[in-house]
């Protein structure tokens, strides 16, 4: 099992490396520079700025210096927010985004799987149709529509929850954003679980489990759940991608000080180092998630696990 993990890890590192390299060179190769947006500066000043930021060196030298600083955890200075380094900006915003994302993912799983199972157990009943209809709505309607609607309902009209803003450690401010962010993956997971559970419940080994006189909850939890979760495991990486994407919008609407806004602002301002830093963070997250999913597959199905080890 450990050997399996390290093989996968060894495969992931080069991928990350390639992404960093490609991103770096693409950005350097692009027309225009980070200072083009400002009021037109006299060329000597531009030259000074470029030399200060090391932009006048040959590309390879810049690349080497960047990699070295990466290893020290230094993403370089932000071109736009002149008083901060990218590392500082990320450091401030990342915990918020992480909290938001983790809670959304957890909600999507903890609510989606039981909902899907419930629908499967009540196949073709009114409850089943109702749940699946809600699921379609959850998948179709984007979070930047859902969140403001929720904000209107719970914030402006009912005054239950704050509409926007953030205080450290405040759960009330996170409630609506997390809900809006979790809704599409939740709905998708519910649909996946339902379909998969329906199939698993038709299996012969589930018939055996029932024939043994085991109560329903035992059959579901011990015998049916793990095989049924395989498609959900496959969906985890797209789910994280969906949550990352959604966080861009949710953070901006709800005024949460996460890193999402840096990506969008960085794009508009053409702030190279910032965008580069964000790309690295997001790629690492996704690749990391991929590793977790691989481990998950091994746990879900012993045949995968045992295939890697000598008998």
């Amino acid at each position, binding site marked *: 099992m450990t050997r399996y993990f390290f093989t996968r890890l060894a495969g992931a590192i080069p991928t990350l490396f390639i992404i960093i390299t490609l991103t770096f060179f693409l950005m350097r190769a692009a027309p225009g520079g980070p200072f083009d947006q400002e009021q037109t500066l006299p060329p000597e000043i531009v030259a000074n700025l470029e030399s200060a930021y090391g932009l006048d060196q040959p590309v390879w030298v810049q690349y080497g210096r960047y990699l070295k600083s990466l290893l020290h955890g230094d993403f370089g200075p932000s071109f736009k927010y002149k008083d901060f380094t990218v590392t500082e900006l990320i450091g401030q915003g990342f915990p918020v985004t992480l909290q938001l994302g983790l809670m959304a993912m957890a909600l999507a799983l903890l609510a989606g799987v039981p909902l899907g199972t419930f629908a499967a157990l009540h196949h073709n009943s009114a409850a089943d149709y109702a749940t699946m209809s809600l699921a379609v709505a959850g998948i179709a309607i984007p979070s930047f529509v859902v969140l403001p609607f929720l904000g209107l309902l719970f914030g402006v009209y009912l005054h239950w929850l704050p509409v926007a803003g953030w205080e450290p450690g405040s759960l009330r401010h996170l409630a609506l954003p997390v809900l809006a962010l979790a809704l599409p993956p939740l709905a998708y997971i519910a649909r996946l679980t339902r379909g998969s559970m329906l199939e698993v419940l038709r299996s012969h080994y589930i018939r*055996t489990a029932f024939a*043994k*006189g085991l109560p329903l909850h035992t059959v579901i939890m011990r015998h049916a759940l793990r095989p049924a979760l395989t498609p959900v495991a496959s969906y985890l990486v797209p789910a994280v991608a969906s949550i990352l994407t959604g966080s861009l919008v949710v953070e901006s609407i709800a005024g949460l000080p996460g890193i999402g806004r840096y990506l969008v602002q960085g794009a508009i301002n053409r702030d190279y180092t910032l965008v580069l830093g964000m790309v690295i963070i997001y790629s690492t997250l996704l690749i990391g998630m991929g590793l977790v999913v691989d481990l998950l597959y091994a746990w879900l199905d*012993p045949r995968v696990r045992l295939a890697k080890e000598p008998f």
Partner: protein
Amino acid sequence: MVPTLSIDELSVSFAHRTGTLGAVDGVSLRIAPAECLGVVGESGSGKTQLFLAVMGLAGNARVRGSIRFEDKELLGATARSANRVRGSKLTMIFQDPMTSLTPHLTIGTQLAEVLVCHQGLSWREGRDVAGRMLERVRIPEPRRRLSQYPHELSGGMRQRVMLAMSLLCEPALVIADEPTTALDVTIQAQIIELLRAMRGEAGTALALVSHDLAVVAGLADRILVMYAGRIVENAAAGELFRQPRHPYTAELLKCVPSLSGPRLARLPTLAGQPPQPGDALQACRFAPRCPRAADRCRIERPALMGTSTSQVACHFPL
């Protein structure tokens, strides 16, 4: 003496787009304690659906009639009380050992959970008992199997595990649905031998369902012959083979090749097809294929009649 299993006028039917399909149509039978009942018939005869209904595994089907196990009614009983009986005193093993065990749980877990659930044992105690049962069903290296997964065992070994699972709580009745069909001939013989030994040791009643008369012949005290959801003949084993009374039974017996008889140029077969479940109800279902059929057979359903030890449902029995 109370029969272990007592079924009266059981019918199992499925709602379908084009009407209702009756898989089991008015079946009644008794199994006495420690008796071995063989149930034979083609695919579609309803023999499997019959016992699935007994085990509460009939799915979406409508089940009507009465199923009494040790004089307690199972149909309509609460799930909890039915579950107390099923898996412990009334157990079933299925045809396909390759897919009947949960792939992600160890053999030990799947065996022990029966004991944990029904007899309140701890998991360690359960594994112990399971290990001993694996010895009884003559699995090689029983202790090692407990921590293995189903895919690490061969088909024959898995079927032994299924058998062990069904015997853990000392059941009064074990239903074996085509237990050897998916296995090699040599393994088949071993499983049958095992079933015989189990009966002898524990005095368990056995309902052996099969389309293969040969499998049933070695074990059964009595044999039920089913056709198109109905029982057509019910007789003691020896008598059935010597003196079949229903035309269908006679044809079936002709189909079993014999090592001692004359060499035949062609293997005899039964002409025609079994009826589709939606077909005519008020007639003898075998009439279209019966060499002895007359007009009466096509309009009147024959009732199962005879003595207490031998019955047949035919207007013109042999």
